[in-house]
């Protein structure tokens, strides 16, 4: 029944899976330290977010005059208009193109590789491939940006969106393969066997069996990569130059350089660039959080 040498660890982890009734915290004495930390952290997290939001709705004059923590009595969207007029829609499109263009191949390729690694573990080539990807986890990939810059120049891709997409795919692969292969490994062996008996090829088995059964993991990896790439700053900073190739984080930075002390405008830009992600977060929160918990806490 074992597919890989890592199997015993997996068995052990499968055991304490059942949900615990809420009794543990409630039955014992209250956990004051954790409770205090919990509420304090809420304040630490919420105050800057709240301040940024309400400030972005104030006029610059009112901002200087009013209590910074009181919401404006007549909120204005002028700051947002200024941001939108600074071509943020174009940057938004760039960010979408780069994110979708990188995440889709990254996840598809990683899933294919994860499937191959799990199913072909007896093959030395695939174990070596796996080792190579694992190495990618230990190495800060930012350290490779200078040669990446050189390669992009030599390929004639400098200052294009493709220049951002290609390295983003590569950087996303190690963690994606790792997480996905752990989930492919959980697919019961018998299912693979019966697919084979039915005469299915590896390609069919990959998409008809493994993919549907590991969908939650694929979704988590997709969301996680999308966040990372959407928020990426270093690659756009060094691989693009013209304003119309900027992605949102870079545009945000240049906008801040331009409007400096117009804090309401700068914060409106912050809120606006964050909005698409927050909408995604609202929908994909459960998936992202449970996936991350599952992926990292064993």
């Amino acid at each position, binding site marked *: 029944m*074992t597919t890989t040498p890592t199997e015993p*660890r*997996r068995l052990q*982890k499968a055991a304490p899976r059942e949900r615990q009734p*809420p009794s543990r*915290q409630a039955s*014992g004495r209250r*956990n004051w330290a954790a409770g205090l930390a919990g509420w304090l952290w*809420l304040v630490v997290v919420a105050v*800057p977010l709240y*301040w940024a939001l309400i*400030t972005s709705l104030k006029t610059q004059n009112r901002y200087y005059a009013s209590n*910074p923590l009181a919401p404006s009595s007549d909120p204005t969207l002028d700051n947002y208009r200024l941001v939108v007029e600074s071509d943020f829609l174009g940057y938004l499109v760039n960010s979408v193109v780069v994110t979708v263009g990188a995440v889709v191949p990254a996840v598809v*390729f990683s899933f*294919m*590789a994860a499937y191959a690694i799990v199913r072909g573990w*007896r093959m030395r080539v695939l174990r070596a*491939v796996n080792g*190579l*990807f694992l190495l990618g*986890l*230990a190495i*800060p*990939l*930012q*350290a*490779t940006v*200078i*040669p*990446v810059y*050189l*390669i992009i120049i030599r390929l004639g891709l400098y200052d294009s969106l493709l220049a951002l997409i290609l390295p983003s795919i*590569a*950087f996303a*692969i190690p963690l994606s393969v790792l*997480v996905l*292969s752990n989930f492919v490994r959980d697919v019961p062996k018998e299912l693979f*066997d019966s697919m084979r008996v039915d005469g299915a090829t*590896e390609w069919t088995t*990959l998409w008809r069996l493994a993919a549907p059964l590991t969908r939650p993991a694929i979704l988590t990896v997709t969301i996680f990569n999308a966040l990372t790439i959407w*928020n990426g*700053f*270093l690659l756009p900073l060094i691989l693009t130059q013209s304003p119309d190739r900027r992605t949102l*984080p870079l545009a*945000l930075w240049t906008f*801040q350089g331009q409007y400096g*002390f117009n804090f309401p405008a*700068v*914060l409106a*830009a*912050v809120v606006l660039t*964050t909005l698409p*992600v927050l909408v995604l*977060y609202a929908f994909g*929160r459960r998936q992202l959080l449970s996936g*991350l918990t*599952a992926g*990292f*806490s*064993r």
Partner: protein
Amino acid sequence: MSSLTGRPPRREPRSVLPWLAAPALVVFIAFAVIPLVGVFALSFTTWDGIGAIHPSGLTSWRAVLTDPGLPHALWVTFLVMAVSWAVQTPLSILLGTFLAGRQRYRAVLGVVYFVPLTLSSAAIAIAYKALLDPNFGLGAGLKIQVLSQDWLGRPGLAFGVVVFVVSWQFVPFHSLIYQGGVQQIPKSLYEAAQLDGAGRVRQFFSITLPQLRYTVITSSTLMVVGSLTFFDLIFVLTEGGPGDATRVLALDMYKRGFQASLMGPASAIAVILVLVGLALALLLRRLGGRDAGASQLEGA
């Protein structure tokens, strides 16, 4: 494997599987492995980032290794790593334990906690830059003297701000890891401890903490290796300043390479960054008694 389970020999030629791994492998080799080798190679050259690349032996290394900027950058990197670890770990364990409770309000709080997880470092840094402004920031607006200091203009304070903002951004993620870890501790352990009359604090130190051992290693590995890559946050927040107070290795690499057009020395710094990352991963793996960075994740 097939001999172990006694299943019939595969009909399909085995060579299909490696082809499935090929696309990922090709992209990874082209944009990660070759660059990794390339960065070593470039550290033995002179290049301004635009013109021709000239081999120049050890010139770049000599320049980097004799520059007092290097030990300083290493020291700052280490400090950021160590202090942000020391701040984040206890907080994350505490918050993870808190979130692991099943009360409804804790789940609601969790929704707020995890918002920073979705924000870009650039957005966070820009918002904090505004918030901490000595003249027009939050502290100044509230007219509270202590809060309206020149946060990013004084070395010690700027360092503290970097650690704080790093924690603000990443504590949620690590709390999440600990939350998962705490939820996996068998309940029976606590029941037994309760029968033995162990108090909450005692339970925390005798059960929760030891049971979280591997979670601590995973989280610490991610924190420590991740801290080598705090580029965007520090770049936007302080640009390494004031002076060189927050100039970590990654920033040093960028500034030498892309601002001073010294790609050779910058590559040498990058090599050091790679070596430090590898050394740390290996060290933590030793400490954990198993491959923390990889196998911990592998259990998923």
